[in-house]
Each structure stands twice: as structure tokens, then as C-alpha cells.
């Protein structure tokens, strides 16, 4: 097995840049109907050597093990009572998702922990996003920064729109709530990121974003993004 290749010099100098999360835009109809919904994003450099989709280093796996010990049965049940997870559960209802069927990210993660006996490692980036979710209860997604045009925002999809800009992109029904950039939809709200915008293993810069809903202070989203940044910057 070959040693992981370090990223270029540009990435290492980027690690010293200021962390500046920003609030994205919301279309008028979404803002009117769902006040308090917001996307908070930040562009972050990747300092860790090795592939983002490859095996996690020991410290990340160790952190997952610690979190597995923290989330036992009682903690899993109490997720339904904690303010931040409940805020997401309530919001799921308000956008037509049944949280008993389509689990909120934190509930899905905790249920997986119960079913598998621990948080299983799924690759560096996946693990780092999971750790941020478990630490704050705020879900975080990552996009390849190079594939995003302009600031992110939330709007409803229009007739004939697809998820992502690739030729084989999955078509979206009109009215689906999506996270979009200037070029089109890049992810469904609380759903999948378009394959064309998902970070490749060797990505040097990521655009990470969190979704804020009413009842979740912005500080939590910033903390979640900061957690991802520090975990990926660590060398």
C-alpha cells in the first residue's frame, strides 16, 4: 500500500486563512413561508493528507469510538426531547417530511449507532461530517468548492430542473426545496448532494454548509462548520 500523498503548498497556506461562515440567500416564497430557515456555509481548505473518501486516520476513528460510548440507549431516546433535534423534527413536519419515515440527520445517525453497535467509519469526510453532527446536532454537508458558482441559497425547484449540472443528473419535480447556487440545484434540502458537486477524494477546498431551522441558534451551525474545518485542517 502506498503512503498517502500530501496536498500541494497552496492548501497548506490556506489553513491560516480566517474562518468566515456566511448566511446564504432564500427565495422570497421560501422566506415568507418558512421564516428562520437558512443555509450557513464556509469555504474550507483540506490540510489532511490522504483521500477524503479513503480510510479515516486513527484520531478520527478514536473520536467516533468515544461518541459511540456517549450515545447509548438512554441518550438515543433523549434525542427526541433535546431542543435542537426536536427543532429539526418539527421542521421536517412543516416541509412535508414525516420524521418517523425520513429520519432527521441526528436521529438517523443515532439509530444507526443502535443498530450497528457503534458509529461505523465510512471514510474521512463522511466521518468528519458525522462527528460535527453528533457534537452539535446540526447536519453539515460538503461540496467541492471548485464546482460551486456564487453563494448558496434555498429555493423551490422549477419545472424541468435537475439535481446538479451533469448530463446524467437526476430530474427534480417542480416545487422540491433545494440548496442551489447561481448555476442550479446542488442538493435537495436535507437530502442528497448532486453527484457532480460531491467532493472527490483529492479535493483541496470544500464548501461546507449547514441548514438552520427555527429554534436553532446560528452559533450551533458555525460550531459544526468549525468542527469540520479543524478536523480537516489537522495535519
Amino acid at each position, binding site marked *: 500500500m502506498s503512503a498517502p500523498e500530501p496536498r500541494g503548498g497552496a492548501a497548506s497556506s490556506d489553513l491560516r486563512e480566517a474562518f468566515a461562515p456566511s448566511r446564504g440567500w432564500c427565495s422570497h416564497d421560501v422566506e415568507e*413561508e418558512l421564516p428562520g430557515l437558512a443555509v450557513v456555509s464556509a469555504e474550507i481548505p483540506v490540510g489532511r493528507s490522504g483521500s477524503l473518501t479513503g480510510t479515516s486516520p486513527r484520531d478520527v476513528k478514536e473520536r467516533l469510538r468515544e461518541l459511540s460510548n456517549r450515545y447509548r440507549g438512554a441518550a438515543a431516546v433523549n434525542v*427526541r426531547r433535546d431542543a435542537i433535534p426536536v427543532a429539526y423534527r418539527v421542521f421536517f*413536519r*412543516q416541509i*412535508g417530511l*414525516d420524521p418517523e*419515515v425520513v429520519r432527521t440527520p441526528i436521529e438517523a445517525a443515532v439509530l444507526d449507532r443502535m443498530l450497528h453497535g457503534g458509529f461505523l467509519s465510512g471514510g474521512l469526510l463522511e466521518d468528519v461530517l458525522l462527528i460535527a453532527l453528533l457534537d452539535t446536532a446540526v447536519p453539515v454537508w460538503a461540496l467541492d468548492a471548485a464546482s460551486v458558482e456564487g453563494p448558496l441559497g434555498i429555493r423551490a425547484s422549477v419545472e424541468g430542473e435537475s439535481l446538479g449540472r451533469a448530463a446524467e443528473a437526476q430530474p427534480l*419535480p417542480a416545487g422540491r426545496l433545494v440548496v442551489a447556487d447561481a448555476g442550479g440545484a446542488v442538493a435537495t434540502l*436535507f437530502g442528497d448532494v448532486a453527484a457532480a458537486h460531491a467532493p472527490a477524494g483529492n479535493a483541496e477546498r470544500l464548501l461546507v454548509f449547514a441548514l438552520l431551522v427555527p429554534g436553532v441558534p446560528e452559533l450551533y451551525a458555525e460550531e459544526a462548520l468549525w468542527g469540520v474545518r479543524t478536523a480537516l485542517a489537522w495535519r
Partner: protein
Amino acid sequence: MGPTEQPTIDRHIPASQEVDEAGARRSLRTQIAKLERERSALIAGAFPHVRPLATPAFDVPASGPRLLSLEALERLRDQLAGQLQDVSHQVDDRNEHERRARELLEGMKLEPARYKFVRLPVRDLGEGGCGVWEVRPRLGLIGMLAGWWQLKLSSGCPLARGPRR
């Protein structure tokens, strides 16, 4: 107001209806939030004795995150209200079951001879674990013949590797 003035008033109705509809949707979303919070807290408090039910898909073709219409919000509010009522009944039934179990245990403690060989799992009392309260004769057959009864709590869950040898 004369009958000729009526058309003029009617022309203003669509605008006010629009405003009212947005307000109604806002109000419904607040009600949905309150119902979901109550339902969630009840289920978590009564776990594992109360099981949540999925809301029947009310708009299957358009499932996925979306802005809900007034009708969809109303349907959802009604479904959640029904579910909350159902969960409340389940919780009340469970509380009543535990209350009766506690009374039985009290009776078993005070007059064991009246409850010969009665078994009461601790789960019925709302406690975790596999323990079982049971009224048994002291010293086996001798106690049974002499009327010496006692209340005992079993040692707990079975061992993963089977009984000790």
C-alpha cells in the same frame, strides 16, 4: 349598504383572502410544531411502551421537502392531533397498568400468603431490567405446608452464556 355596492366590495376579497391564507398557513405551522413537540416528548417519556406510528402519506406523488399548501397543512395538523390523542391514551393506559402493578406489589409485601406464587415483572412497574417479584414458600415444601410465604426478587436478566454450572 345598497345592493349596487356589493361588486365593489367583492373585488377586494381575493387580496384579503390571500393575506388570510398566508396567516392561516403560519398558524397551522405553529400548531403542527406544538403538536409534534408534545407527541415527541410523550413518546420519549413512555419509551419503550409507546410506539410512534408513521403519518399516512398524505401526498405521495409530491413527497419530499416542499412548501405545503393550506389543505396539506390542515390534513397534517389533523393527523398529528389524532396521533397525539392516540399516544396520550397509550400513555394513560400504561400509567394505569403501572399503578395497578404497584398496588399489587404493595399487597404482596404486606400479605404474601394471599398472593401465593404470583409473579410480577419489574417492567410492569416501569423499571428497567429483567427482575421478577415472586411470592414463594420459605424452605420449599415445608414452608408451603406451614404457610410460610415470602416475597423475593429474582436476580435479574439471564446470562448471555446460559445458566452457571
